[in-house]
């Protein structure tokens, strides 16, 4: 008995002792009994699912060439200070964020040049249609909001995204339960059996986009997803013509945590699909280690409309590739009250009638 390992009770966390009577491990605190072999394996699985190794190779980062610099200019907004990139031939335009006029600042500097671009698949007409459709069927939307919106001001903007791709090995540990019920004449018994389920394998993710512009709300951009990388092409300045492009001002490193979290969530979810036959499955811990992980820099097409209404800012965005339209809308409180009273009244009347009919039968 040289290798005495102290096991922790999976139920209460207390130190477990060997019980000579039952020849099992027994927790002196909560009285739970365990097979020695099960505890050994459980301990091993805990060790296997601890910690992560999620490091990324940074983007290759080609810089703008001299030729590019002639074709691309940086424009700056006097009002909000936003800097966007546009085609050199671009006429005066307005800021996609605050709608103030923007002026040419000069040539593009030494920043990274995008690796890829998904060119706009949907034009302005489709964007205006999308916005109109977005307003449709929203019963609580104030009528004035619909009418006062300047649909024409919707702008096509290339938004900078960091694309994270990684192939990884993962070990995930789940806590799963099975319920078994039976009864005698006096009681209904429910037995809850706890299992530790260990899964290990590999999974790869391709081009998870994380918004690299501080001007773009991250949740708005994630709501536009998914973007499909199959339409992406190598970046060329020609794609900028007619559109504005934002420059990244959130470094790749700052987006890594969010990407890692999403990978972890999805990995645990995918492996959970193999934990079958239980009434509940909850991921306890997971260890993910990347084999090959890299980030790319790409421009994705987004139609954007910034408006203010009653002193509140509203942003609407359409995925320029898929047409998915998002943007929170204001609520008309008097309409809400009207619908509440109306629906409650009708429901109450119906319930009353049903009760009466049931009584009649």
């Amino acid at each position, binding site marked *: 008995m040289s290798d005495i390992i102290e096991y922790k009770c999976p139920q209460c966390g207390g130190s477990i002792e060997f019980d000579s009577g039952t020849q099992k491990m027994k927790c002196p605190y909560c009285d739970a009994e365990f097979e020695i072999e099960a505890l050994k394996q459980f301990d091993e699985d805990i060790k296997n699912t601890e910690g992560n190794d999620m490091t990324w190779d940074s983007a290759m980062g080609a810089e703008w060439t001299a030729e590019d610099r002639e074709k691309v200019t940086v424009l700056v907004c006097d009002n909000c200070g936003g800097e966007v990139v546009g085609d050199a031939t671009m006429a005066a335009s307005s800021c996609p964020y605050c709608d103030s006029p923007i002026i040419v600042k000069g040539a593009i500097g030494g920043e990274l040049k995008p690796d890829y671009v998904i060119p706009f698949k949907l034009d302005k007409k489709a964007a205006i249609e999308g916005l109109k459709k977005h307003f449709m069927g929203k019963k609580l939307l104030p009528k004035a909001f619909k009418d006062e919106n300047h649909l024409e001001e919707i702008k096509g903007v290339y938004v900078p995204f960091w694309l994270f791709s990684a192939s990884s090995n993962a070990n995930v540990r789940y806590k799963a339960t099975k319920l078994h019920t039976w009864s005698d004449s006096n009681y209904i018994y429910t037995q809850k059996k706890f299992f530790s389920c260990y899964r290990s394998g590999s999974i790869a993710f391709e081009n998870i986009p994380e918004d690299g512009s501080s001007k773009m709300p991250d949740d708005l951009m994630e709501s536009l997803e998914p973007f499909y990388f199959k339409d992406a092409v190598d970046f060329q300045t020609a794609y900028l013509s007619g559109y504005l492009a934002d420059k990244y001002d959130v470094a790749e490193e700052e987006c890594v945590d969010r990407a890692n979290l999403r990978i972890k969530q999805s990995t645990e979810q*995918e492996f959970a699909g193999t934990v079958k036959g239980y009434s509940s499955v909850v991921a306890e811990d997971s260890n993910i280690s990347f084999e090959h992980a890299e980030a790319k820099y790409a421009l994705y097409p987004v139609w954007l409309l910034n408006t203010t209404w009653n002193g509140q800012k509203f942003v609407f965005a359409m995925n320029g590739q898929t047409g998915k339209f998002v943007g929170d809308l204001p609520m008309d409180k008097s309409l809400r009250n009207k619908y*509440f009273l109306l629906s409650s009244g009708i429901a109450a009347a119906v319930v009353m009638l049903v009760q009466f009919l049931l009584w009649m039968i």
Partner: protein
Amino acid sequence: MKSICIKATGFRRIIVALLAIMICIMPYAVSSADGTPAFVDDAGLCSEDEVQEINTRLDGLCNKYNMKFAIVTVDDMGYKSPMVFSDDYYDEHFINDYPDGVVFMVCMGTRDMYLSTAGYGITAFTDAGISAFNDRVAEYLSAGDYYEAFDEFVSLADDYVTKALEGNPYDVDNLPKEPFDFFGSLIIALVAGLLFGIVYVCNLKSKLKSVGYSKGATSYVAPGSFKLADSRDIYLYSTVSKTARPKDTGSSSGYRGGSSTHRSSSGHSHGGGGRKF
């Protein structure tokens, strides 16, 4: 001769007087051979007009079904149990002319009510039916609404016998309808309406919201890249919890409805049931 005549005249007078008294005392003895009216209000719970009206209605029922429907109110039952008192009352006054019938007894001294049935009355008033009747009428009696209680008895008795004649007497799974509970239903309807309104408006509100973080990155899993290399399920421990089972009530398990009967002291078979009010 003369004296005999006088005697005879006196006797006739006495007879006439007695008859007149009898008619005065029991003006409503329409259908009972021994002269007991259908409604005897010894406890004095109703006014004369009310007694008369109920008697008329009870006699109407009597003619309609050829069954006796009687009510008796007393202040005390003379050390008899409600069952014995009611059975005896029916046997004494009605059983010979009406082997089928029912008597509703109310004793104010002990606050007992009892329904005793005989003949076809046993068929029409099942145990469950009697229990439902008692519960309904006890509410009026407890509230002191005696006339309403007897009025309810007349209506229910009519209803019970009609149902029985249709071959479908009120029983365990076929009880008489409670009156429509307007206020109770209104409260349920208002609460349900309120809940529906809240859910509906929340649903409308949620349609205005379309921005939020996405969970995970499932759309970006490389097709076919997911490979499971190892899996192991270990049983750790189990817990057992118990909850008390709802106790079976008599009616749901063994009780199958129908009428139970007993024999009264005079040997007649009766059904019945009562309660306090």
